[in-house]
């Protein structure tokens, strides 16, 4: 009898739910995080795509212009190589502004909206 009672009790206790719980709005929170993550990915892809297009366009135009005004293109290349540091810094700054506009600010705004 004792063994049967124990058996029954053990079986019942196995079917009891453990004492772990999630907040009531868990599903909404997960969906929100997911939307934000997907948005971040989309924004980043868009930024990389646009940057790629911009640089490709610049390369194509420069190549094409080389045949139109070879001297100007060579002068420009010389200017860039002589002022590599400021040119790089300006390019970096412009690129960062573009990145902030396309990705960073959107991410920050979505975080602020959440809070």
């Amino acid at each position: 009898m004792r063994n049967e009672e124990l058996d029954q009790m053990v079986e019942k206790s196995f079917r009891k739910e453990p004492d772990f719980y999630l907040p009531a709005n868990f599903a909404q929170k997960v969906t929100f995080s997911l939307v934000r993550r997907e948005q971040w990915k989309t924004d980043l892809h868009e930024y990389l795509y646009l940057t790629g297009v911009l640089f490709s366009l610049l390369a194509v135009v420069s190549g094409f212009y080389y045949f139109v005004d070879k001297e100007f293109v060579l002068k420009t290349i010389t200017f860039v190589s002589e002022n590599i540091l400021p040119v790089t810094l300006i390019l970096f700054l412009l690129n960062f502004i573009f990145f902030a506009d396309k990705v960073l600010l959107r991410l920050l705004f979505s975080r602020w909206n959440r809070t």
Partner: protein
Amino acid sequence: MNDAELIAQILSGNMNAFTFLVNRYQKLVVHITGRLIQRQDELEDVCQEVFMKVYQNLGKYRNECKLSTWIATIAYNTSINYLRKFKKVDEVNPDDSAALRNLTEYKSDDFEKADLHRYIREQIENLPVQYRTVLTLFHLEEFSYQEIEQITGMPEGTIKSYLFRAKALLKEKLKFVVDENSLKLVKEITHEE
């Protein structure tokens, strides 16, 4: 809405359908994850990670198994990875002798003062992780042996053996502390449920 319709809705970009899916399966995930990691403070993050993986891999889901089995597999793997990453390896590898060592820590005198319900629950939580996993999947979530095999990758024989040994371990623990007088309390509890 059945699972197939739900998946189709999510894949077409309906995020409300995803919220619906999370609501439908969060209990399953919290049972598996909670029993495995046993940390309430980390539970939400791990469960969130599980559902993120569900969303990311939903396109790869084929109707070879039930959606609940597939989600349970993700929950199990995520929890095991969490344990491997943040806890001792001993927690992932079952060790009967360790579980039995805990048994001797409880004395009859202590038991009389303790709440039996809580005691049994504590004993389940003290079982090795693989035991807790198969117990939760089989008894609480009512998965079949084949489904548990699919979820955990353990052979059917091992699952049966874990179930049997978990029950035997728990019974041993209870026999150790429950005397004839306390059995009345046991009866009351069994009948009131």
